C-alpha cells in the first residue's frame, strides 16, 4: 500500500520501513508477536507496520482476536517483547484490573480530560496514517476500557540514572552479581540527607517534602520484596532482611532507583489531583536530580559476584573510601 497515495505518511508502508533503516533500528519488527498495552490491560498483538515519525518509531499493531477496527499506531512505550516474563506481567495486570475497576470508574475529571486528549492524538494518528476509504471508529482508542497506561504519572528519570538502571540490570541478570548488603548509604540515609539539604534550602516548604519522603520510604519498604527484586536477588533478601527490619535500612540507592521505575504504578492508586500531581512530579524530579548529583557516592560502581567486573566506573575504590568517611556523619534516622 505504500504506493497508493502521495500522502506524506502513507508512503511508509511495508517496504520503506524495511529499506530505509535510520540510525537506530526499530525495536520491534514487522510481523512480530508482541504484547501491547491498551487501556489498563496488556493484549497480545502483532506488529503490522513500522515507521519513524518525528525521530520515534511507531508501530501499527493488530490486537490478536480483536476486530481490525482496534488496529492502531502506537509508540514503543505501549509495546513489550513477547516473552514469558511479560506474559506473566500481562496476567498479573489482568488480575489486578478486575479488582481495580471500582476505583477507576470513580475517577474524576482529570482523568477524563486526559483521555480526551489521548483521543485527540489517536484521531490525529488515524488521520495521518489510515489509507483513505477505510472506515474506522475514530475514538476507539480511548473508549476500550478505561485508559490507564496513558494516565500513569510520567516520571522522567535523568539519562545517567537510566544508564545506572541498565547497568544494574546487566550486573544482576546477565552477570549474576549482587549488590553487597548492607549498603552504605542506606535508603534511609539518602532520604534523610535529601531532607536536610531541602530544609536548609527551602525552610518551611520542606514539610511537604518530608511527607513525600516518608511516602517513598513506605513504598520502598513495602514494595521491595514484591516488586523491586530481580529473581536472583530473592535468596539474598531472605537471608539479609530479618523479621522486623526495614529494607530501607539495608538496601541502598540501587534498589531505591528501581522504585522510581515502578512509582507510577503505585501512585495511580492515590487519585491525586492534577495540580498536586504536577507539584509532586517536580519534587520527585528534584530528588532524582539529587541522586544524580551524588551518583558516584550513592551507587556502587561494581557489584559482588564470582567474576570481577572490568570496572565500570573510574576510581571506584576511592569512591568507596570517600563514601564511608562521609557517611560517618549520618545518624540512623527514622523519618
Amino acid at each position, binding site marked *: 500500500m505504500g504506493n497508493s497515495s502521495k500522502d506524506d505518511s502513507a508512503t511508509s508502508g511495508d517496504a520503506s520501513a524495511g529499506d530505509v533503516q535510520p540510525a537506530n533500528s526499530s525495536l520491534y519488527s514487522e510481523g512480530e508477536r508482541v504484547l501491547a498495552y491498551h487501556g489498563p490491560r496488556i493484549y497480545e498483538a502483532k506488529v503490522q507496520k513500522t515507521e519513524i515519525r518525528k525521530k520515534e518509531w511507531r508501530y501499527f499493531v493488530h490486537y490478536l482476536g480483536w476486530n481490525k477496527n482496534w488496529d492502531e499506531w502506537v509508540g514503543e512505550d505501549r509495546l513489550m517483547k513477547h516473552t514469558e*516474563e511479560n506474559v506473566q506481567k500481562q496476567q498479573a495486570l489482568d488480575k*489486578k484490573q478486575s479488582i481495580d475497576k471500582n476505583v477507576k470508574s470513580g475517577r474524576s475529571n482529570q482523568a477524563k480530560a486526559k483521555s480526551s486528549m489521548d483521543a485527540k492524538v489517536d484521531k490525529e494518528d488515524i488521520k495521518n496514517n489510515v489509507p483513505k476509504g477505510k472506515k474506522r471508529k475514530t475514538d476507539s482508542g480511548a473508549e476500550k476500557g478505561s485508559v490507564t497506561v496513558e494516565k500513569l504519572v510520567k516520571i522522567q528519570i535523568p539519562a545517567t540514572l537510566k544508564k545506572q538502571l*541498565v547497568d544494574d540490570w546487566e550486573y544482576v541478570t546477565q552477570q549474576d552479581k549482587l549488590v553487597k548488603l548492607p549498603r552504605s548509604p542506606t535508603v534511609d540515609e539518602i532520604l534523610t540527607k535529601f531532607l536536610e539539604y531541602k530544609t536548609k534550602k527551602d525552610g518551611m516548604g520542606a514539610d511537604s517534602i518530608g511527607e*513525600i519522603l516518608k511516602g517513598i520510604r513506605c513504598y520502598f519498604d513495602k514494595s521491595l520484596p*514484591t516488586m523491586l527484586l530481580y529473581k536472583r536477588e530473592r535468596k539474598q533478601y531472605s537471608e539479609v532482611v530479618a523479621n522486623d527490619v526495614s529494607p530501607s535500612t539495608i538496601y541502598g540507592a540501587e534498589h531505591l532507583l528501581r522504585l522510581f521505575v515502578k512509582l507510577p504504578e503505585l501512585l495511580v*492508586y*492515590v487519585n491525586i489531583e492534577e495540580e498536586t500531581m504536577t*507539584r509532586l512530579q517536580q519534587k520527585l524530579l528534584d530528588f532524582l536530580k539529587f541522586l544524580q548529583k551524588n551518583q558516584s557516592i550513592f551507587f556502587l560502581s561494581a557489584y559482588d559476584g564470582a567474576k570481577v567486573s572490568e570496572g565500570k566506573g573510574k576510581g571506584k575504590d576511592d569512591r568507596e573510601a570517600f563514601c564511608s568517611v562521609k557517611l560517618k556523619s549520618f545518624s540512623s534516622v527514622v523519618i
Partner: protein
Amino acid sequence: MSSGKPKEEEHDGMSVHSPCKPPPSSASSLPKEQAAQVELELRVLEALEIYPPIKLQGIHRHFVIYGLMEFLKRSFDRHFSAEEVLQLLDRFYNLEMLKTDDEEIDLLNHEEDFSLPSSYFIKEES
C-alpha cells in the same frame, strides 16, 4: 482564621455530631470563628472525596496526606502541616479503626520480579 490548631477536645473520633462546636474560650469572636471553622471542615470533607480516608491506613498514607496538605493549601492559601491535617481528620474519623484497603492487600501480596521497561534498552539493541 484560627491558627489551625483547634484545641477543642474531641471525643473518640467516630462521633459526627458537634465537630464544629466552637471552643468556649473564643466566645467574643464566636460567629466569625465559627464560620471559619465550618468553612475549614467543609473543605476537609470536600478533600476527603478525592482522598478517601481508608487510604490513610496503608502504603499510600503519606501521599494521601500530601494530597490533603496541597488541597487545603490551595483552598486557604496558607501552609498546612501534616500534623494539622491529621488533627482535622480526627474531628471526623477514628483513623486507627480504619481497615486496610483490599485493593492494597492484593497489590502487596502479588509477587513479581522486577523488570526494566523495554524502552531502557533501545540504544543497546540497535
